[in-house]
Every structure is written in C-alpha cells, then in structure tokens.
C-alpha cells in the first residue's frame, strides 16, 4: 500500500468502527514501523501493514488487540472484514492494522511511549506519530535486523546527522537506556556492524 492506499484503508476502517461503536470514545494509538516512515516522508516505499501501539482503546481498561477479549475480538473482526474486502486478504490473518509490535516496544520502553503528536484524527481512529525521528532510529537499532532496516537506518541517520557509533548509541540511550536491554538486543553488535568508530 502506498500512502494514499493506506489512508483509504484507514478511512474505511474508521467508518466501520464508527458504525459498530457509535459512542464518542476513540481508539488512540501511536503509529510506528513502515507506515510511520511513510507518513513522515522518510520513505516512499509501500508497506503492507500498519503497526501501532494502542494507548486508549475506547476508554476501556484494555490497550491491546492481542488478547482475545470480547472488545478486542469485535475490533479485530472489523479489521479483518476490511482487510478481506479492501485488500483481498484471506483466512484468519487479515489484520492489516495490528499491534503485534506493542509487547516488544512497551517492554523496551518500560511502558512509557515517546513524546508524540497527533497525525490524523478520524472519527474513531486517532493516530499519533513520534514527535522526534530519533525514536524510530532507536527502535531500528534495537531491532537489529540489518537486512530489513539497513536502508531506513541510513536514511534516518542522514536526516538526523548521526555519523558514528557514539552518536548512534546516544540516540538509543535517550529511549532505551537499560544496558541489559541493549545487551539482550545485541545493540553493541549492531552498532559495530553499521557504524564506524
């Protein structure tokens, strides 16, 4: 999906959610991953899913679609229906809008999300993006997926003028300062692989 197709899908999803949940409560979430890079103009590449971290699920105590509660199940059914109708996705795996990344990122951030700003406010879906691109770079460095993230890391480093290992480490330290986490996620290796001293 390019940016327009992504937004069309979100509008359709929002309308379906508004119909199913007529009350005023919204789903508020932080967009991360490829969709966020697309929205921020860092890349223009297509993406096939929208990764989010939900911090308000229509006023309920829940904040994730991962557990099969009645509310999450109802929302997931709507997402799957839109995924099937709009994108032709099959079977039980049509969650083009999902928060599968949330457990990883909330664990890493100790349940604290970065400063964020409103990006799009639909009727039911309120989408936020990180206020500082450094968060996205920190995530990618912690993820340690050189093949997948190499180009994005390079583009983010250019944009943020990050040129060496120490500067990259300083960016990660802002959001994920735990040395144990950094070690568990192989950060020293990733920095050594990707940056000159």
């Amino acid at each position, binding site marked *: 999906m390019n940016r327009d197709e992504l937004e069309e899908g979100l509008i359709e999803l929002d309308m379906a959610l508004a119909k199913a949940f007529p009350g005023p409560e919204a789903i508020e979430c932080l967009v991360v991953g490829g969709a966020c890079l697309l929205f921020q103009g860092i890349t223009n590449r297509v993406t*096939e899913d929208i*990764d989010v971290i939900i911090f308000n699920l229509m006023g309920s105590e829940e904040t994730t679609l991962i557990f099969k509660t009645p509310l999450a199940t109802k929302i997931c059914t709507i997402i799957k229906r839109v995924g099937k109708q709009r994108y032709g996705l099959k079977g039980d*795996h049509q969650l083009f809008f999902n928060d599968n990344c949330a457990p990883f990122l909330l664990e890493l951030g*100790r349940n604290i999300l970065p400063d964020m700003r409103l990006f799009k406010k639909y009727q039911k879906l309120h989408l936020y993006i990180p206020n500082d691109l450094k968060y996205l770079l920190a995530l990618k460095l912690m993820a340690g997926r050189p093949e997948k993230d190499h*180009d994005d890391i390079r583009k983010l480093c250019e944009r943020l003028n990050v040129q060496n290992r120490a500067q990259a480490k300083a960016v990660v330290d802002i959001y994920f300062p735990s040395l144990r986490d950094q070690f568990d996620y192989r950060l020293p290796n990733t920095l050594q692989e990707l940056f000159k001293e």
Partner: protein
Amino acid sequence: MRLKQQTLATAYQQLAAGEGFRIAMGNFINFFFLYAVDDRQELLNDPIQLPPHPTKVQRGWAAFCAGAAEYLAERYSLVCPAWAHNPAYCMAEPWYTISDDDNRELQESFRKTTPEAFRKRNVFCSNRVFTNQYPSSREPGSLAELQQRRVERLATMPQAEREAYLSQMAGKPRIHIVA
C-alpha cells in the same frame, strides 16, 4: 487495491529487478508470518526464475532464496521444494546480503552467524534475517523469546526491583502528547 500473495518466487523476481530487501522480502515475511500462515508451503513451492545472463547480484539473491526455502522449511515443518536444491543456486565466492564492501565488521558478523542453509550456498546474512513481531514467528527475537527472557529476568531480580518493574509495566502506557 488487492494485495497479491507474495511468494518467495515473487520476492526473488522483485529482488532480481532491483527492489530492496525491505519490500521484496519484507512483504514475503508479512505473508509467511501473518497473512498466509496456513498456506506457507505454497509460498515456497513455486520455483524462482533466474533471468537470462544473470548478474552476480541476481545469482546471489537466487542462492539466498534457495537458502531461505530450506531454512524456513526446516524451521516450520514444511517440505523444502526441489528447486531449492538446484546446485546452480550456490555462489562460487562468498556473497553478502548487504552489498557494503567497505563494512568488514558486518561481513565478519555475518560469517559468524549465518544459518547453515545459507552458508552452504556461500551466502552470508544475519541470523535475524526473518526476525519479525508476529506471534507465529519462531525466529530469534520472537514474542515467545521475549516472554521467556522476561520470566528469566524477573526470576533473577531482587524483590524490590521486581516489584518496581512490575509496577512500572502495569496499566496503560504512559504518554505525553505534544501540541
């Protein structure tokens, strides 16, 4: 707009045409681990099509895809398709998935960690080449691995630290919205 099923053969076709790893293999990963979990075998079955007079890069990605078919078949109880055993999909010299000739550190790291299915084809990549966040994943860095790590970490924490950690992780994520 309909999403077309991203088989390994389709991913190869895109890589051979110059598409980046993130899109070509990233979309394959989305299908393998999220959208088509029940049809994984189909994603591997179609043979890749090497272009006439392939370049070194096109041969490299072909060997990578053959390695990927074998690696994924082994890890997810699938059948490795016959095409992946074609000896043509093997590089004469070491070939790296990231074409950064200046980066000796990365190459050294890849040489240490490349899974066997790639190594035997003389292709070198990271051992997190298929890492993803989807629950069906058994790759390094999977959700199951995260949960296991959390259990181990909690078990070794002093009580006060454990309580502080659990209290921090409880409840909704803490946010700060900038106007």
